[in-house]
């Protein structure tokens, strides 16, 4: 589980900041929908 640090308050939502380090090449980025590998979360289709 996620433990809050001193700067965090209850009853508030937090999204960590992205820190840019690498990028994909433009065509690969376009095909994937993002140029940032750390933001790429492809969908694995499941049949229900």
């Amino acid at each position, binding site marked *: 589980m996620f433990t809050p640090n001193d700067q965090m308050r209850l009853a508030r939502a937090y999204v960590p*900041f*992205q820190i*840019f380090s690498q*990028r994909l090449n*433009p*065509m690969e*980025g*376009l095909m994937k929908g*993002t*140029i*940032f590998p750390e933001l790429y979360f492809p969908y694995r289709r499941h049949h229900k």
Partner: protein
Amino acid sequence: MDREQLCMLKELMALEFTVLEFHLYLDTHPTDQRALMEYNSFVQQLKVLKQKYQERYGPLSWQEPSSYPWQWIEEPWPWEICYE
């Protein structure tokens, strides 16, 4: 649309998309100097390619020169293109 034009159009989409991604990133990270450098360099590359494309195939946006007759309305429009 012939192969060559389609290929160049996709290159253009890819560069423009890269610029957009850095643009959104910079909105929330205005002091990230490395991202800003990348942004500026891709803006430059995009300008060059867009210029080249428009010289060959006509204007993609407003405020671009046109040969005669008025090229803006030339088909195909974006939704009519077969992107295969």
